[in-house]
């Protein structure tokens, strides 16, 4: 069991091209905004080591339902912001693909899914904090919803693309994919709660860390900071 990534060769050629294009566009926008703001060393360092941490966390086997692996994409989004979060999603997917998890051809699609998780988690977290939620419920909800959005997007990508070599009508495919999305939703809940605990822990050992981020975010517009 794992946070499932789309596998190699499962889509027809046109879909591979489409999702690659969409993924490239998303990353293109992020890169454009980063470059326009003048790339800061601290952003590169945070994204680089953040991706390394996320990738390392993926090596840990969490004993739920026989073992799950997670990248903590929601958490990364919350800590690094939407733009760096999207970059980290891409880089983690590049390394995952090189090590046989995820897919080279579907790098675009998988990045799209993970970037969505990071970005959604970030904005939901900010919104909930502004509504005076406590740290634990805010992060747990933000991560769960963000990850769920990713799971649903992934299902949608499969349904839109159609599975390579399957003659199944789209309606039936949707039923089949529902199971997969359901599994990922389950993982999203576990990961969301875990993210909540992690952030709660971070807030207790390095209270300044979250305040610091708050302060930084307060000074500039959110996209501007991360971007």
């Amino acid at each position, binding site marked *: 069991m*794992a946070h499932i990534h789309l596998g190699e060769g499962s889509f027809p050629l046109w879909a591979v091209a489409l999702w690659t294009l969409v993924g490239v566009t998303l990353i293109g926008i992020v890169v454009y905004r980063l470059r326009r703001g003048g790339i800061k060393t601290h952003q590169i360092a945070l994204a680089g080591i953040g991706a390394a941490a996320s990738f390392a966390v993926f090596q840990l086997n969490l004993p739920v339902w026989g073992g799950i692996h997670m990248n903590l994409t929601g958490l990364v989004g919350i800590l690094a912001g939407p733009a760096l979060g999207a970059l980290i999603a891409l880089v983690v997917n590049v390394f995952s693909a090189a090590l046989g998890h995820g897919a080279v051809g579907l790098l675009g699609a998988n990045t799209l899914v993970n970037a969505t998780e990071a970005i959604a988690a970030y904005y939901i977290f900010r919104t909930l904090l502004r509504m005076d939620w406590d740290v634990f419920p805010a992060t747990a909800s933000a991560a769960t919803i963000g990850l769920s959005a990713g799971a649903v997007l992934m299902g949608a990508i499969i349904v839109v693309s159609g599975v390579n070599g399957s003659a199944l009508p789209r309606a039936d495919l949707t039923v089949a994919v529902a199971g997969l999305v359901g599994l990922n939703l389950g993982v999203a809940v576990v990961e969301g709660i875990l993210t909540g*605990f992690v952030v709660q822990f971070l807030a207790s050992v390095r209270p300044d860390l979250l305040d610091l981020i708050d302060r930084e975010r307060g000074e500039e517009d959110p996209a501007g900071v991360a971007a």
Partner: protein
Amino acid sequence: MTTLSNHVPDPRLITAYAEHRDSPVHRVNAWTKFGTVGALVLAVTVADSLPVLTGLYAATLVVYGVAGLPYRRLLYWYTLPLLFVVSVAVPLAVLEPGTPIGGALGTPLGALSVTWQGAILFAELSCRSLTVVTFALAATMTTRYADVAYLLGRVLPTPIDQVTLLTYRFTFVMVETLEALVRAVLARGATLSEFWANRRTYARILGMTLLTAIERSERLVKSMEARGYDGDITLYGDVPRPPIREIVVLVAVYAAVVGYALIAVYGVVSL
């Protein structure tokens, strides 16, 4: 260490094979291997015949063996990619219209049966996925660290290349940090075999991993700026252009894939 997963290749093991072994595959130019991955992705995407896909898969398994890599570990590493295939293809195998294999199973939802078409689909998706997985692993486990870094630096645009290079460098460090944390809690009697009972311990391990990452990045900034960093780690290292022989083979491979697609799959060109 036992606490880290068997199902995800340890980057240290990967580099150990790449740096300290030798085989014909090790000696193939890194660009050639990179190009071959692309050709394989294209091939498994367009091919729709089980014999062709099985042949491709068998060929990559042979390459993997020629490179002197361990088959047993490969089985563990297949778990995650196969999970996707199983979770998509199993429902499809049941729902796929066609001739049932054996009898149908009566369920409240109606009669369920695996069809021949469904079973073939399952086999096809498995071959597609495992072909590229096997080859990607064979490529990373036979290409030296410096060459991989050079390729990444070349292929990706700034600042993604910068981020990727740092990630590549620090993945090893972060894996060891995580290992150290796990080791330390185990030494004090924590049992990590049950998640819910130990969720706080997990949160602490993961939290400390991220905290270490953030603090390390703060120190990294200092040390990079102290050496005048301005957003560009250029690699002078060089992976030369592949020898003519390999270029010819690569062109032939692409031609074969495109030709196969045009003739056998899409029927654009008829012979």
